[in-house]
């Protein structure tokens, strides 16, 4: 195995071993604290253009299998682990992680002090990073290359990750509702969770128009998770405003939550190092119950946590808050069928504590039935 270097924007360099594909790659360095679910993480489109540092020291133990993919490919820009597994040991495994990374040309680095790196990112914030392996570059040259790479703030990435063509995920039980899901980087677990609840999901590209959506006469619209800076999503935000005016029930997750927030008039901001893990405590302010949830977000909504707020679409409130740091994790409108959460009720990877939110979406669509179409 050849040497590899992980080079941070601020000049700190970690030396390790090349792993997966060799070459170079750039992205935003973020750490992920889940002890299981590396496959779901790798294939989650929200990690597009991010170099993911796994804090769990052994990665790859259970290999890769088709069933657990969250999309058709690996999205991370680079993968950083302490100890990649030399074998896979699981009855469902089809390929080794190393093999898949090579096939998909994902540059990785192993054998570095991932805890030191994590602490660095925690203290100084997520930043640009490059991984270089098998390259004849000086340390200075590598730092310069990293500093030339693209920043996450201000990045519009939906076009990269969204489906080019729409497709339908049928309900696996008796069909009760039609939902349009706007694909901003959707994970396969989401339509799966909806199909179990009698929802037929029409997944549309990120740039689907209001007409394209309403022509399907949906009972609800779902705004998916996805990568990028929510402040770049002006068109989608306007689209959501139109849908809100039509009083079509809306459910947003993660990036979709940020877009709903912006549509309601809130600002979004970048967190120091984000929430990426499957152990995050979120309290439902309405019931006082705590859910252990799966998170993957670098941005968040700025909204009043202690009082209700008013919007042009009527009053609303923050429903969920992260207990670790008080970040807004959920919103709802009180007189209209719209709500969203910053975290991942579809889990994959992560706990299923928040799966009830899909039931809430179903209830919402029951409560606010589709209006008879004008056209």
């Amino acid at each position: 195995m050849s040497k590899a270097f992980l080079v941070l924007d601020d000049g700190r360099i970690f030396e390790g071993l090349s792993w997966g594909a060799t070459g170079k790659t750039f992205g935003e360095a973020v750490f992920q604290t889940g002890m299981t679910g590396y496959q779901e993480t790798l294939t989650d489109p929200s990690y597009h253009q991010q170099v993911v540092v796994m804090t769990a020291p052994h990665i790859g133990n259970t290999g890769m299998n088709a069933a657990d993919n969250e999309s058709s490919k690996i999205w991370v820009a680079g993968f950083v682990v302490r100890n990649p597994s030399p074998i896979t040991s699981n009855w469902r495994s089809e390929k080794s992680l190393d093999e898949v990374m090579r096939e998909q040309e994902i540059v990785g680095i192993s054998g570095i002090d991932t805890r030191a790196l994590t602490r660095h990112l925690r203290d100084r914030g997520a930043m640009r990073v490059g991984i270089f392996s098998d390259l004849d570059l000086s340390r200075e040259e590598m730092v310069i290359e990293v500093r030339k790479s693209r920043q996450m703030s201000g990045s519009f990435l939906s076009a990269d990750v969204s489906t080019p063509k729409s497709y339908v995920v049928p309900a696996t039980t008796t069909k009760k509702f039609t939902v349009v899901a706007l694909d901003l980087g959707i994970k396969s677990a989401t339509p799966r969770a909806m199909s179990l609840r009698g929802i037929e999901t029409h997944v549309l590209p990120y740039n689907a128009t209001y007409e394209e959506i309403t022509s399907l006469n949906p009972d609800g619209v779902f705004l998916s998770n996805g990568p990028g800076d929510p402040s770049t999503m002006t068109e989608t935000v306007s689209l959501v405003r139109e849908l809100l005016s039509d009083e079509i029930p809306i459910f947003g997750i993660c990036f979709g939550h940020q877009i709903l927030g912006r549509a309601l008039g809130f600002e979004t901001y970048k967190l120091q190092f984000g929430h990426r893990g499957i152990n995050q405590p979120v309290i439902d302010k309405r019931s006082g119950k705590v859910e252990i949830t799966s998170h993957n977000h670098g941005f968040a909504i700025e909204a009043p946590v202690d009082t209700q707020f008013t919007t042009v679409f009527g009053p609303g409130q923050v429903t969920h808050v992260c207990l670790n740091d008080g970040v807004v994790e959920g919103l709802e409108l009180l007189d209209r069928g719209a709500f969203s959460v910053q975290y991942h009720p579809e889990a994959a990877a992560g706990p299923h504590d928040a799966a009830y939110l899909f039931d809430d979406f179903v209830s919402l669509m029951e409560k606010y039935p589709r209006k008879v179409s004008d056209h």
Partner: protein
Amino acid sequence: MPRDTSIQSVLVIGSGPIVIGQACEFDYSGTQACRVLKAEGIRVILVNSNPATIMTDPEFADATYIEPITPEFIEKIIAKERPDAVLATLGGQTALNAAIGLYQAGTLARYGVKLIGADVDAIERGENREIFRTIVEKIGGESAKSVICHTMDEILEGVKILGYPVVVRPSFTMGGLGSGIAFDEPSLNQIAGAGLRHSPTSEVLLEESIIGWKEYELEVMRDSTDNVVIVCSIENIDPMGVHTGDSITVAPALTLTDVEYQKLRDLSIEIIREVGVATGGCNIQFAVNPDNGRIIVIEMNPRVSRSSALASKATGFPIAKIATKLAIGYTLDEIENDITKVTPASFEPTLDYVVVKAPRFAFEKFADADPRLTTTMKSVGEAMAIGRSFPEALMKALRSLERKESIFTFPREISEQKVSSLLNQISTPTEYRLQQVQQVLWAGISADEVFEKTKIDRWFLTQIELINGAAREISQPGEMTASLMRNAKQWGFSDSQIALLRDSSEEEVRKSRTHLGVRPVYKTVDTCAAEFEAFTPYYYSSYEEETEVKSRTKPAVIILGSGPNRIGQGIEFDYSCVHASFTLREAGYETIMINCNPETVSTDYDTSDRLYFEPLTLEDVLEIVHAETLAGPVLGVITQLGGQTPLGLAAGLKAAGVTILGTSPDAINLAEERGAFGDVLAKIGLTAPEFGMASSQMQAIEIAAKIGYPVLVRPSFVLGGRGMEIVYDDAALSSFISRATDITPDRPVLVDRFLDSAIEIDVDALYDGLELFLGGVMEHIEEAGIHSGDSACVLPAMTISPHQLQEIREATLKISEGVGVRGLINIQFAIASDQLYVLEANPRASRTVPFVSKATGVPLAKAAARISVGSTIAQLREDGTLPQAGDGVAKGISVKEAVLPWNRFRRSDGRGVDAVLGPEMRSTGEVMGISSTFGASYAKSQISAFGSLPKAGSVFISLADKDKESGVRAASTLSSLGFRLFATTGTAEFLQSHGVTTARVRKASEGVGPFGERTIVDLLNAGEIDLVINTPVGRGTRADGWAIRTAAVQRSIPCITTTAGFNAAVEGIKVLQSGVLDVRPIQDWLKDA
């Protein structure tokens, strides 16, 4: 939800003596409970019969009852204290059973006391297998197919459905007691028969065999608003078939995908809800079929368990502490995470390291015992290690066990014969199976083949192959470069392992390693994989880039703990270490604890200023000393409190330039080395029994001839009397020597004159170089020859004259001076024919320090720690640590009784192991009885240790010839107390001739008589005998005695094997017959002048 203010006082039930399956993890959990409750301003009432616990220190509760943990005694405590609530979920199965007893007896209702933590219904739902099975089914989980049986006939019917092999599990027993795997009808008869007896409800479960499946445990917590979190997942490396307490385990689970892990998580949450554990922790076990992922729910413990302690140490999430807060009404989100300070306890810890736990066994103490590991737990302790990879953590865990056999070796050659024999062995789990696995992999056998034989997951096998590969690389000739060295250390190789691979010495490797600049860094256990800053310095070593040791200004004292529990070195030593830490923190020092035992209070991150969870080897300790020296001033290392483990390191540390606080290594050597100690005694005019050292059989026999039989023989340099025996003739001596195979001139055998029928005395004292403080003089109830750890003893001594006491004090002072003690010393004396003999001196904290401290109210370990850092006894008297004047004075009469693990072990043929006491220590724990008379204290100690002594009924007496005279009076008293006496011919005739009415029964070897007269074993099995007195004759010649004792043990009938014990038991029975045994808190005893 804030705290429930209707709870103003809580009775906490402890777990009693340390036994296999229930060890000091419950002192850790109980101590945390007491601290939490006190901090909330709640009045804490505690009952625990185990004096060696931290929790029974008077400052941890408002009223501490060192009394038997039985519903009868607890009712007396409740009547007196009228607590608002009882907390029983932190004291293991003992506390839970006591709570159920209190409920069933109506005590809780009568006094209006509520059970907090888990209610009786939830306990029942969790522990009753039939109910639990329906719960699992209801939530959509699967249980192993099984049949509940109450009779042998039902069992035989059941196995027809399930087929062999079949698992047998008795209901309501702890640590899997009585369970096992039956492969055929004879083994089923035997295991299930015992299981029916062990189960308090005569109920066993037969179960489809899932041997070889992957085994997992999840630690779950729930609060009163139904918030549930999973604290930790644990994966067993030894698959199903080996009790989890006996398995090498790893945290977190390493071979599950998220999909599979979330299934276990979902099931766990559903189960804790459905069982209805209102608040607190529980542990749920799963088996997963490695071929298809089918999940079977095995069982749940609706309480804090051994695994909870492990999970707490593994994650930094203090389960017992939080369970206590939940029990008094708080919810998880209201409790702060101590480590991060900013985040709440309602989260799931995430690890950026790997934890490996390895069990420590004591098979060498039970030569007859079946060495196979089964579903009955047999290990006596465990070590835990943390690393940044599985190999690193595994290698550290194995060296933490302090057994050379545990450490992986890489021989140049392994013969084919050896390999094929190892390949046969690895199919059967035994103590060293993983080492055998490593050897066959080293010899080139494929992981697949090893998997077929062991079902150990291929992932773990491959990791061991990686370790072997690294060993190959290290052993290559050529220069040891920095990168090669770093690599070796990252795989977890110790300096001594590297030395072996490179034909070098440990010291040379260390020198070259430090020269190359390859040293460990220390990472923090922080519950959150560095997502948040950690404020608790709980460290582990790793060979990484960045260290997290914080600099400090206060002078530090490093305390070495005692490592994994083992027979002879257990909780008593942890007690002393913890005390030292508490007192030195108070005195303004920064205390640093090093230990690798996850069960202890010392490895609670709250105990010391800093905690290093590291192996106790010279290398590991030296590196910590180095790291801490860089962090700030280090005063030195305390080695005299953790037992033999740290004491063994003292010389090496000193040689490396480390300051040893307290008694110097030279002084330790003076006491430990027989010749040198003999010189000390000679100089000060004290007598030791004559002895000699033999390096051959001939020599041994010569020595024995010179000093006269009986002699006590043992290998030199051992702890807990390992391998020690009393022999009465040449033949027995020769046989001993031929069994002690590794006898060499370097490792001679000690031959001591054995003082027959001597009284043995144990003394704990403090010496500061100027003054002696005599902590206590204990008199053994069993005569000399029974290991002091296994002998009951009484404080104050009952039969010693004031003149003899004075003589003992003077001798203690002289020895302390002569050896050069600075701190604690324990001396064993014997008095035979009015002559005082010195048996041995140990210049360190002894096993009896906590007992003496409880009986006298003097914190000996604290005083010793202070002396180590320069305080004088005069100063300690002044500041109130020691009494103003005089020596330690016992308040009331305290009896310590040892608890033995006979019922845990069986021979390969399935019969019990012999339950006879000897010079080799075999007890795992101890209890204390305190009252104002000897009889009452002894009776209490027996109730605590064995259940009870009978108040009436039948007693079987069998006395060896040498014991017959001394046993007559006790037998006669028993008869006059209304007991029916039975004896076999010899003893019966002897007693009759002395006017004691005795019925004759047949020996087992005589068989059933012509008219169907039953043998004593038949009577025992029929439950017609209530007490057995059986003094053995000598090893080997007494098949009858053995049959009687094992039958008694299996039926839990008290069995006394010495005449001294017999006399004491009669005293106890008198008290029991006379009526009431009072309860009194230790705080009240200590107020007595």
